[in-house]
């Protein structure tokens, strides 16, 4: 395993995609700071640095999907997995080392983003205004979600031997997860009562009415659970600080990690390689 990780990180250091990811993380942080600073100057908005730190989480799934599918896809297209097996590495170790490299790279990207936000953002926007323990809890939850994302996309990359198909499936999946999360969020954010307007004797009159689209208690539970299970739903709630129960999110992520990694290990062990 150590040999596989050593070789994996050596490849990572020389990999163009990794350096692009690094530049992207720094560039995105600087871009966010620039746009928020402009808004602050123009409209006098109050910008919270901690909020900027959390914002990257909403798109981290896309970044992981692209990185994992392309980085691990090469393992098949260039015959690296074939080589690793034929020189006696266990399939379990190959799978886990690839997962670890993906996780560390993704976390590195996020941490780098936060460091840039902290170094450049705090002097511009002021210090963090929420308790540090609250921020750390949110970041911890985001990190666990990142690991869950990595386990899903590593699973896909290790199951599909074609780099292009891996990339397409991963990207479709991440957008699918985001769409599902947004749908649930939209349903959950519906107002219970709405103002309905009607003309009475030629005059417009408003009255408070029950919103027909307001979900029932059961529906709310279902959508909240779907949102909590879905990594995209988790990060939307974390970035918006709207999660009703923060503690369950890492548990759902842990479930995803166990299911996808467990299934991946079993299936990869049986996979017929060409």
């Amino acid at each position: 395993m150590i040999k596989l990780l050593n070789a994996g990180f050596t490849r990572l250091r020389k990999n163009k995609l990794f350096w692009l990811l690094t530049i992207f993380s720094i560039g995105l942080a600087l871009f966010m700071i620039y746009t928020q600073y402009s808004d602050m100057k123009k409209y006098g908005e109050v910008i919270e640095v901690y909020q900027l730190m959390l914002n990257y989480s909403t798109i981290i799934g896309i970044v992981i999907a692209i990185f994992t599918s392309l980085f691990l896809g090469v393992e098949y297209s260039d015959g690296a997995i074939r080589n690793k097996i034929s020189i006696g590495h266990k399939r379990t170790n190959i799978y886990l080392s690839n997962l670890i490299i993906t996780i560390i790279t993704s976390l590195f990207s996020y941490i780098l983003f936060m460091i840039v936000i902290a170094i450049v953002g705090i002097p511009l926007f002021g210090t963090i205004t929420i308790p540090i323990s609250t921020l750390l809890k949110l970041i911890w939850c985001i990190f666990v979600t990142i690991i869950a994302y990595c386990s899903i996309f590593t699973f896909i990359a290790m199951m599909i031997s074609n780099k292009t198909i891996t990339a397409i499936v991963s990207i479709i999946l991440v957008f699918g997860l985001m769409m599902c999360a947004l749908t649930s969020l939209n349903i959950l954010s519906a107002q219970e009562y709405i103002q309905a307007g009607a003309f009475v004797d030629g005059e417009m009159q408003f009255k408070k009415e029950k919103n027909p689209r307001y979900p029932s208690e059961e529906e709310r539970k279902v959508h909240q659970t779907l949102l909590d299970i879905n990594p995209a739903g988790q990060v939307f709630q974390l970035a918006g600080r709207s999660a009703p129960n923060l503690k369950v999110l890492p548990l759902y992520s842990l479930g995803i990690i166990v299911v996808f990694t467990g299934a991946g290990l079993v299936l990869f062990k049986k996979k017929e390689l060409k």
Partner: protein
Amino acid sequence: MEIILETNNLEKKYKDFRALNHANIHIEKGAIYGLIGKNGAGKTTLIRIICGLQEPTSGTYTIYGVDNSSSNIESVRKRMGAIIETPSIYGEMTARDNLIEQYKLVGMPSLEGIDDLLKLVGLENTGNKKAKNFSLGMKQRLGIAIALANNPDFLILDEPINGLDPQGIIEIRELILKLNKESRITILISSHYLDELSKIATHYGFLDNGSIIKEISSEELMKKMEHKLTLKVSNQKDFVKYFEENKISYEVIDNKTIDVYGKYNLSKFINELSKKNLIADDIHEQEESLENYYMNLIGGGKND
């Protein structure tokens, strides 16, 4: 003689298609074992199974005496190097970086041997050129260098000269001979280029429809391919006595047939025999090539 690889009734089925059908091969230490078979005969399937990429449907194999069901099978694979179909190289990396990567993968304590390996395969001057821009021959040689990174004593090369130009074929051939002679590496090489294999192989395995139909050493094969006279005789003992006295290379095929190896002037040969009152009922002169031998094995015999 120590057996490096042995397969026992190896079978591989893909749905209804049987890629390997009770294949049995035996590779001795120090051999260059040429695995011969037409496309689709099962060569690559056999190699994939030996390298652990696929599981056999039934049958077993042993590498250095370790059974494939043993938990130590991965450990013995650490003594192997392989190129399966295409060389396993990262196209975005240079030759040196690819070797550094392999050195880390196999856990070499230092990177000291890389220059020697690059020199061995003639890639010492490729500098910063990425492997994806290499010619097919260069890629193949880099693949061999990668397969040699762990100092293997068993090397598996699947169709290593496919698509190479004549110069590339010569380079690979010389490299294989050098590895076998100087480093005593046992080599399994699959190919359907019979001529090329005949220049390097010490042993042959003929694979057809998933089965090894014949295993033969190159010495035996050369003997079979030699110019020979096939004599049909009734007084076999007298002929044998004469051949022994005159140190003539021969082989008794059955109680009426003797093969005499070597190039002889047929009329002079018959004259010499007749002086000793040795009259053959029939004499047939023949010369066999590896190609003929192979064709007879796989199809000719069946069609005749």
